[in-house]
């Protein structure tokens, strides 16, 4: 075990995968100079762990600013023997390549009757909560959940980031991983061994019996903090992190809500057609009778993200808004 940051864990998974399989390559803007911190060892090119030194320009592909071509090249490469990891840096830049994601990456295997496999991982980070303004603050994973053929993951801890990314690279299907920039610096003890976390298996971040909170991405640590606060008020809260949104571990969610009868869903994406809406619908459809109170969603509002810290702070779920929702669903307010 070593103390590892979320970002360090991603770098470790990438290094392990690059070492394990020659077909794994990294494609992206500014990956040579390790600008985003997952393709290097230290501060300088000469440092041990610099990906360019270790793997060379053939496998570390520094690109022009051409997201549509980057995504399309990676798809074509994945269909013909490579296993690319694409670093798209900010999640907002995925929109530049929407046609490639929706019409090629997601559809090719299906349209061609299973002839294509698409072993490619698209990494991007959601920079919300950091006063970057509307163009860089997006949390667009629900849009992509709406596209059959993609797998969507959103790790919330360093251990999950490492294990899920490693599994994603091994997957023969296209995976989009949405990292939360707010979590980049979070640290925990992470195994130095190679390990993989299979998709479709939720993590119970905290066990409890009165209320279930399903939380996504940076809402997970906030939900855990809210659960701690609620314990002091005598409410036992179970926090579930689905970790992978497609496929979604609906069984774990249904089991928990069957037990508690009360559900809060917290996520940093917009409210309309979000993952929280989807999870709420599944629970209502499947186990309506188990519910003791209406489900509550805690999400970002359907509003663009403002720049000023004074304005942005209030936009995402936090321990206070989640705790309020827990009180309400528990009938304490």
């Amino acid at each position: 075990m070593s103390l590892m940051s979320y970002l360090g864990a991603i770098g470790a998974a990438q290094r392990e995968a690059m070492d394990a399989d020659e077909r794994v390559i990294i494609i992206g803007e500014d990956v040579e100079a390790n600008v985003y911190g997952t393709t290097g060892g230290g501060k300088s090119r000469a440092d041990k762990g610099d990906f360019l030194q270790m793997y060379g320009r053939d496998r570390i592909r520094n690109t022009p600013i051409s997201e549509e071509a980057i995504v399309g090249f990676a798809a074509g490469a994945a269909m013909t023997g490579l296993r690319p990891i694409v670093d798209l840096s900010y999640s907002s830049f995925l929109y530049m390549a929407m046609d490639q994601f929706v019409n090629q990456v997601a559809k090719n295997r299906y349209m061609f009757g299973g002839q294509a496999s698409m072993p490619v991982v698209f990494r991007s980070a959601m920079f919300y909560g950091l006063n970057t303004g509307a163009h860089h603050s997006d949390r667009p994973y629900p849009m992509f959940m709406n596209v059959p053929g993609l797998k969507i993951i959103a790790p919330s801890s360093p251990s999950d980031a490492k294990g899920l990314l490693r599994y994603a690279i091994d997957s023969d299907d296209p995976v989009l991983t949405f990292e939360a920039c707010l979590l980049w610096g979070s640290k925990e003890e992470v195994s130095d061994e190679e390990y993989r976390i299979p998709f479709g298996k939720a993590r119970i971040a905290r066990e409890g019996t009165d209320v279930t909170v399903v939380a996504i991405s940076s809402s997970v640590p906030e939900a855990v903090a809210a659960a701690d606060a609620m314990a002091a008020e005598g409410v036992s809260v179970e926090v579930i992190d689905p970790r992978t949104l497609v496929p979604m571990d609906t069984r774990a969610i249904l089991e928990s809500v069957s037990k508690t009868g009360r559900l809060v869903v917290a996520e940093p994406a917009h409210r309309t057609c979000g993952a929280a809406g989807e999870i709420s619908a599944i629970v209502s459809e499947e186990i309506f009778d188990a519910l003791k109170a209406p489900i509550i969603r805690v999400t970002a509002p359907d509003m663009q993200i403002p720049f000023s810290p004074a304005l942005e702070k209030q936009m995402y779920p936090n321990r206070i808004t989640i705790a309020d929702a827990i009180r309400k669903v528990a009938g304490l307010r």
Partner: protein
Amino acid sequence: MAAPTKDQMLEMQRRMLRIRYFDERASKMVKRGHIPGTVHTSIGQEAQVVGATMALRDEDYMTGNHRSHGHPIGKGSPLGPLMAELVGKATGVCKGKGGSLHLADFSVGSLGESGIVGSSIPIAAGAALSASVLKKSHVSLAFFGDGAANQGVLYESINMAGVWKLPVIFLCENNQYALSTPAHTVTSGVIADRAAGFGIFGVRVENGQDVLEVFNAVSEAAARARAGEGPSLIEVVTYRFNEHSEGLRIGTDYRDPEEREQWLKRDPIVLFRNYLIAEGHFTAEALDALEAEVLAEVDEAVRFTDESPYPEPETAFADLYTDKEEQFA
């Protein structure tokens, strides 16, 4: 560059005939309702297609567009599963999931046609990236139209393939119209000349009705690609004899009927047949026999299609992901 052998020339004529007869039959089947939806034929453009595909090796990669049957046929894909796909049968090359617009036959390097104009171009370039990183000798070719030549992704792709010196050929089928829109009204400058701005090789094949001219241009580009000299942009001037798609009726006369008459006189299959006879490569009888043989092949493809079952409804729910468990987790 070696001149094509007699065998190769016969194969060129065979593949051009396959496209012609296949597309003529498909056109009828659309009009009779045997093929659901529509198809876009390559009739009139056979030399442009086959000159390119015959310049590639069997294992080389290729992507295409909505004018989609000629490309896999030109690459050597058998006709039965292609026709069955057009009708939506279980034996279709894509099991009935793709249809005319999304034909693909990975066994001959056909990585997929595309219903979205321009969208498959970077896929071909990505296949060239594989060849480059994995040190394989494959070349990859992207077919696209004059309409697609105005999509931004083409230029992102040319640029990135250019800096990485990828073995990819960008082949513009300039049939002078994008649906109803004359290319010259929406295209600034000459498409092939755009290559110069990216420092890659560019050439305009003025007589795209001559299969050998196209073959030579693409052969040279493929040789350069295999030698590590990077991508080429080839613009081939040609003409589609049919309407944009079969059964389509456009209110306005966007093409001058006289212009079409002139182009019909430059039928690539007739031109090549005459050439093969005039040069003494083959007799008229031998070429007649070839035509009858290909016609029978198309009949056989239709028979295969007719005798094939439709896919079971539940197969609509397979082939999205490689693993079933996760799909329904």
